[in-house]
């Protein structure tokens, strides 16, 4: 309880994402109620929670893809809402990676990455746009040979990287990732974690990351937020979270898999 209250009183000026009193519901089913969350500038925040606790719904709300029933969401100092010019600006400053990449299946990887560049900067010369897209593809850890391929010709891990390249196309300040390592083998997942850490450092990104991957939590997340009981149950560094006295949190962070991840990753929160 106290952790949640602490978050609410934190100042919002330096928060990249500031959510206050958010309420989401589908029909009679309330997903979130009175949810407060702050994501600080320059951090990687991991969001965990059981199935059906509305992690993806929260991300969609932050992106303005679904209107909230109550509460406010501020992203990069802009209120998420009806104002279409503010939305336009937010879209430019945030990058999103959906679960399976959500690449446009009829376009090549290169064309996928060029889509946001074309949409937001139509005056960009073709050659330069091409070079920028190629740069993002390489930054995301793909070889240039992948650029002319269609998403269906790529492996799962490569699709994620291509999705990341598209998310990075506009040089966003905020990156939202929905289970980036789900479905990857441990080596691929570790490489993706490493990539995220490098990119965050080089590009100065703030990252909002939904994950089930304990290794990801322990190796790259600065802070972790636990979504349960329709709100952010607790938020803090892994050390703080592990000591929270809540059944689900205890089961999650002290299960056999968590112990293994702790042993390998050390406590990732610096």
């Amino acid at each position, binding site marked *: 309880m106290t952790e949640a209250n602490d978050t609410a009183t934190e100042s919002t000026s330096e928060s990249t994402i500031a959510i206050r009193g958010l309420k989401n519901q589908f029909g009679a089913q309330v997903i979130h109620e009175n949810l407060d969350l702050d994501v600080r500038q320059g951090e990687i925040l991991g969001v965990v929670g059981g199935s059906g606790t509305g992690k993806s719904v929260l991300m969609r709300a932050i992106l303005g893809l679904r209107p909230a029933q109550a509460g406010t969401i501020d992203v990069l100092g802009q209120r998420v809402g009806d104002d279409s010019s503010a939305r336009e600006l937010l879209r430019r400053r945030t990058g999103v990676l959906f679960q399976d990449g959500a690449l446009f299946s009829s376009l090549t990887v290169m064309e996928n990455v060029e889509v946001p560049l074309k949409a937001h900067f139509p005056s960009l010369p073709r050659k330069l746009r091409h070079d920028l897209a190629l740069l993002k593809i390489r930054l995301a850890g793909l070889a240039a040979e992948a650029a002319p391929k269609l998403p269906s010709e790529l492996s799962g891990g490569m699709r994620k990287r291509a999705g990341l390249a598209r998310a990075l196309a506009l040089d966003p300040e905020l990156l939202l990732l929905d289970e980036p390592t789900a479905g990857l083998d441990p080596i691929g997942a570790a490489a993706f974690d490493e990539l995220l850490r490098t990119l965050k450092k080089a590009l*100065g990104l703030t990252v909002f990351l939904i994950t089930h991957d304990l290794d990801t939590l322990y190796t790259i997340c600065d802070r972790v937020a636990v979504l349960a009981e329709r709100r952010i149950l607790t938020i803090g560094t892994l050390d703080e979270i592990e000591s929270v006295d809540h059944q689900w949190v205890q089961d999650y962070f002290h299960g056999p898999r968590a112990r293994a991840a702790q042993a390998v990753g050390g406590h990732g929160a610096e």
Partner: protein
Amino acid sequence: MSSEKPSIKTDAGSPERLLLAGDWQVDVAAVVAEKVAGVRGPANAVDATAIRRMDAAGALLLLRLADRFGIETSRLDLGDDHRALVEAVEAATQSDPTTEPAAEPHWRRFLAHMGESVEGIFAKLGQLLGFLGLTLITLVKTVPRPSQWRVTSTVHHMEQTGLNAMPLVALLSFLVGAVVAFLGATVLRDFGAELFVVDLTTYAFLREFGVLLTAILLAGRTASAFTAQIGTMKSREEIDAIRTLGLDPIALLVLPRLIALVIMLPILAVIATVAGLLGGMLVAAMSLNIPAEMFISRVHDTVELRHYLVGLIKAPLFAIVIALVGCLEGFKVGGTAQSVGERTTSAVVQSISLVIVINAFAALFFMEIGW
């Protein structure tokens, strides 16, 4: 967010030193690129510490500028915030030289595409024949074993493809029947031969339209449904699951659909014929003053049974074509949702084309043998 204009100046003190300032970001990348291209040498040092905001696009252009004058990245004067970014971008651009596969000229792709399509026709025909053989073998194997008959599934598909399509088939045939009668009336009235409208409508519907209309409608309605059903199962690996459980997807999925359609298409064709004749009869009675009794007695006088057999004999054939094309295209679906759509389109196009082509050959054949 206020932005500063990007600028490139030469240092007044040492003319070979470039001073960069402003915001080097993607939204002004075009301007920056022009400025970078416009820099006249010589230069041997770049001071980028005055750049306020930089992103990957800016870093790329900065590296290009440095590269043009042969200045190594380590010798660039960079703000502390920007060094990590520039190094990451440099690593990404150096990882392999720009080996872009040369795009093929348009005319070659056009030719290649045409060749592929033509080859595809024969390949598809071959596949369809192979699939027909496979299905027939499975059918022969299944018939003596009543325990393997999928009666429930067959009846379900009879309802889906037959019963549920009945109103549509009847309505459309009725309307086409009326239109044919109108058409005949317009032409034949000038010759005072209105009565021949009856012959026109009956021959058209008994020999051709009853079956053809039904087959075209079902090709659109049922072939697409079969492809989508089986294709969705294929893309979710359900077909593989069926195989690994020791079951035969042909016996499980194709035979019930095939049998259901072979039973229902002729029945629907009969209904379509009756509806078409009713449409013609209505127009004859309303606008040509041919009462229904006269219409029916005229049909009795002129039409022989063989005319109807010529039409109806094609119905099972069309049913087989539609069911097989629909199922086969379903099995061809790959992993993506997009390919379900592509295969469905292909199933409809193929089955309608095949129905019309087969019908044309059948018409020729029956005419030649004098039926």
